[in-house]
């Protein structure tokens, strides 16, 4: 195609684009739905966050400006919960991604009937509802009668039962183990699909060049897996930031505040203390943090 031909075809297209109206009336129903289900709650939360709104107080709420935010930034439990959220989310996602990657690479060469069986087994935890996962691990972690302590005692690894969920230092790692168990299959599935999408020519070329296994993994496969890994990790980070069921069912944020995450703290403030104003202020901060991940996710998608 010559330059003249290119100009001839792109010229009208550009003019058409210039004529495209900035607003298409066809999107109005979508915008209305979004305004109701997304816009209204966000705007109302913003308004509530500037009020001392308590559900038990039937008097009209007072406008308190940024007072809730000032209280929030001085609230040590908020900072503890934020730190716990970061540890829980980043820790679980990074370890699950590593395990998922390892499993995907290890099971890549299993073929035939065995492949289907192995893959089905590896994917099973993903099919278990999160609340069931939480209760499953809660009972497995029981200090007396839990299977984990029973096995460790039987094997002579520990001398006395360990209070997995009732120790301020062990509770968070214990909850994370349950979360990692449930989330690893997601990464396994994602990365297995990405591995199978690597062009055969690339693999063959590397083999012709006598690339060794590790070299193949680090120089050929991992670069191909980078984008799905990034997108999957961001998606899971957002999901873990909002994870309520597993933590609530296993520890309710305890012992003390050792597993209290932002979502647990907001729930307690809003639905146990009925402090909707203060809880909304925390919800706004939480929303802003999630927006950062969402923007990163969208950029990664575009790059991918």
């Amino acid at each position: 195609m010559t330059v003249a031909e290119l100009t001839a075809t792109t010229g009208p297209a550009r003019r058409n684009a210039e004529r495209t109206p900035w607003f298409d009336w066809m999107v109005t129903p979508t915008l209305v739905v979004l305004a109701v289900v997304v816009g209204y709650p966000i705007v109302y939360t913003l308004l509530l966050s500037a009020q001392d709104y308590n559900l038990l107080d039937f008097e009209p709420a007072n406008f308190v400006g940024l007072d809730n935010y000032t209280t929030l930034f001085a609230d040590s439990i908020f900072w503890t919960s934020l730190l716990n959220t970061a540890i829980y989310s980043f820790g679980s996602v990074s370890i699950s991604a590593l395990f998922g990657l390892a499993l995907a690479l290890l099971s890549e060469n299993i073929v035939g009937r065995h492949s289907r069986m192995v893959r089905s087994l590896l994917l099973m935890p993903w099919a278990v509802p999160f609340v069931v996962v939480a209760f499953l691990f809660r009972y497995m972690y029981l200090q007396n009668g839990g299977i984990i302590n029973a096995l460790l005692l039987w094997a002579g690894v520990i001398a006395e039962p360990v209070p997995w969920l009732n120790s301020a230092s062990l509770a968070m790692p214990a909850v994370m183990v349950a979360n990692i168990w449930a989330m690893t299959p997601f990464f396994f599935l994602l990365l297995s699909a990405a591995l199978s999408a690597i062009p055969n020519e690339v693999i063959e070329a590397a083999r012709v060049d006598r690339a060794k296994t590790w070299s193949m993994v680090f120089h050929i496969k991992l670069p191909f897996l980078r984008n799905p890994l990034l997108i999957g990790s961001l998606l899971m980070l957002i999901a873990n930031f909002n994870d309520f069921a597993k933590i609530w069912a296993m520890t309710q944020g305890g012992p003390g505040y050792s597993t209290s995450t932002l979502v647990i703290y907001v729930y307690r403030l809003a639905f146990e203390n009925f402090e909707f104003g203060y809880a909304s202020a925390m919800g706004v901060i939480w929303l802003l943090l999630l927006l950062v991940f969402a923007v990163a996710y969208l950029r990664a998608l575009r790059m991918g």
Partner: protein
Amino acid sequence: MSLLDKRWLTLIGAASAVAMLSASAMAQDKITVTFANWASAEGTTRDALEKIIADFEAANPNIDIVSETISFSEIARQLVLRARSGNPPDVAQIAGNDTILLAGTGTLEPLDAYPSDQLKANIKPGALSTLTVDGKLIAFPWNQSPAGLWYNKEILKAAGLDPENPPKTIPEITAALEAIHASQPDVIPLGMDTTNRAFALTSNWPWMRVFGAVPVGEGATGANSPEMRAYLTWMRDLAQKGLIEPGRKIGEFRPLAAQGKVAFHWDQVLLQGVIQGTNGMSNEDFYSTWGVTTLPIGPNGTAHTFEGGHQLIMFGNSANKEAAWSFIEYLSTDAAAVDGYTVGVLSSLPSIVATGDPEVDAKLDTPIFNAFSTRVIPTLSPQPYGAEYAAAATAIMAGVQEAVTGNQPIDEIAASMQQQLDK
């Protein structure tokens, strides 16, 4: 069509119209009372409640009871939301802090004027005082379920302790727990709820009071007090020696108690029903195996307990207050209701002295019920219930959990607890 057929058709049509009109008039005459409760959500109580409702409707054909099922953990939230939106039920089952919480919204109907003098005279002493807020009776006691210190006599005997002479002081119970742990390591020496929820503070409050600690409420000495630190230190000592198992809810100890795996259990009167329902133990075996006593006394020399019974409330904007009250009265005082639900299913005590039915009253004459009525109930202490209670419970129980599960110095925990309470 013949003339005769037409006449028949006219006659049938007229008769149907009259029947429909009279049915409609009857439906209009019938009063509907909505009853929000968690009893119909739970398998153990559902059938008994449905039977009581059916009995009440049979005895009051002009009243239709509509039972609205809400889980125990959700009922306060839902009632607050419904009260705010102007759509509460007529009557609701409620308990603990939630009763006082709802009274604080100002949407409850004061019940002082409803009970007759005869009923007032039949109510157990003190049963109404904890439900009176600002001089108004805001709820009616459906049943009483105070907590006592249950003990398994077989376990005590196996530990070389006197099963007929349970510990009476904190040093005595500590020594008994150590003896049990040493002789029977697979037994939980003391079952206590140390979760982080409002009920856990209710359950732990009498223990704190034994040490003289009053972290919040009337006469509060704060969480960072020597008494509170003494309580926290004792709790940590128990946990570190393996004498309590932190993190379990009160209900999670019950099946273990039924299996003979819990020596002492701080639980409500209903424990007997749960144990017998779980292991099928006869009354005779139960009374020879289990005993109940008051909480041990501490440095201040007094024992304490809490009331875990259920109450019934009526909302102020109910359109059928008289019918609602007759339902409340029926649930709480009718002999069949007391027999079939309060005693028969809940294993709890009625809030009235006598039902008027000798057979039912005879069922209340048992060693356990008598121990609760004569020794435990007199040690009932008020709880610091109110709008701030849930927030206080979170702060205090988080501190208790830190004491029993962590290594942070007790002074720091108490100071942090106070900081949270001051917020």
